[in-house]
């Protein structure tokens, strides 16, 4: 999907659950973005461009901290993650899956 057509968009990312510590990009985003968390919309700066469907931290996370989406733990950070940084397989580890070595 192209992230281009959003003339009236009021926010470009959202936390699915207000308790989450990551938000999901609703389109391809970069720079300052409006993030809907619960009933409020916050302006946050993402560190680098983030593709639609990908996540970024909405607050600073320490290494070893649970990442919360849908209000539930989706894995553990493997490194410190600053607010606005991409959260994905490079810094999040499942507590369930077995990944391919290397």
């Amino acid at each position, binding site marked *: 999907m192209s992230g281009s057509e959003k003339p009236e968009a009021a926010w470009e990312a959202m936390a699915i659950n207000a308790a989450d510590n990551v938000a999901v990009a*609703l389109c391809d985003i970069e720079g300052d973005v409006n993030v809907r968390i619960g009933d409020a919309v916050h302006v946050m700066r993402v560190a680098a461009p983030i593709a639609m469907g990908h996540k970024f931290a909405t607050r600073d996370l320490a290494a070893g901290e649970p990442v919360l989406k849908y209000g539930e733990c989706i894995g553990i950070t493997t490194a410190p993650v600053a607010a606005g940084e991409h959260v994905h397989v490079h810094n999040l580890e499942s507590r369930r899956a077995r990944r391919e070595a290397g």
Partner: protein
Amino acid sequence: MQEGATGPGPAGGKTGGARRDDASFLGFPRPKGRAGIRNALLVLGINGLVAPAARRIAQALPGSRLVATPYGRGQLGPDKEVHFAQLIGLGAHPNIGATLVVGADRPTAEMIAEAIVARSGKQVAIVTLDDVHEDALALTERGIRLGGTLARAISAERRQPVAVSDLFIGIECGHSDATSGLVSNPLAGAVADRLVDRGGTAVVGETLEWLGAEHVLAGRAAEASIGEAIVEAVARREKAVAALGVDLLYNNPGYENVRGGLSSIEEKSLGAIAKAGSRPIRSVLPFAAQPAGPGLHVMDGPGFSPESLTGFAAAGAQLMLFTTGPGNSFCSLVAPTIKISAHPDATRALAEQVDFDASAVLLARATVDDAADQLFDRLVDVASGTATWGEIFAEGEECLFRSGGSF
């Protein structure tokens, strides 16, 4: 006009209709059990030997629905039980006004018919090859006459106000993408919450989609034993798959999922089970089994959506919510199926497939809660008779699940 959860459609707005309270819908009360939201004649072929005759009978009776199993001999144990459970459940379905059982031998047909009557109290007629000296053409003729008589009888029934607490919905997803876990599944879940809060019933299935999030589902069980049953159901299937040499937790999510932004199996499964909403889980239903009471239930069943939908239908679900990303045309035959997508390209391209356009949430023009209110209204409208695209274009089928091979 295409975007927006307020999108076009006969039931899209708050104007015009007589029904504007969400406490009731217009349905067909039945002698037993839930009210119907449709009132069709079912031609039920219970043995593969008579499937062609059942098809001819249904073709001769416009408006009837056809379910004709291709199987019927050499089935034993749990496979036979689940096969009969599906045939009986579909025959007794609330949306079916009357059922014509088309069989090979008389005793099996009578057994199925009696079970349908015991569960639904509805009119059932039987035709079998035993009655017509194995003459499939005579079977067809007799079936058309008997089926026509049933169709005429049920045509006298009228819709009446029924409390929404009588609704039982199945929630399914098929051909998912990033918008499913982000918007459509949480939206379906929010509608399930609304229905459960009004005393209604909802079910989700596809046991292996819980893998990675079964602890979350288990934590929402109404009782500890139900939570244990959820974890066991997943473990049982995971083990069965492992016995075939497949490790479901290895490299899952796969490359495409990872590219789309999914980072872990937990995240993927949470996106899938978001369609269950957030209310306590009242039971783990065996495949095709009826829930004992209202509220949210999970069904231990296969992941292929046609089979999963048939499990919900056989359990008595009158209506399905079906979330998809790029699109998926498959519907239940007996239960109107509301197709939901939040993908703007899909809702534009598939205007005659997607019943509910949730792309407004993705485009940040509506919240999930706004869209859920509108989808709940749509659900009540469809329950009252508004047609889904799948009904209009006859995209419905039932797909019978088998748990073993024939002997």
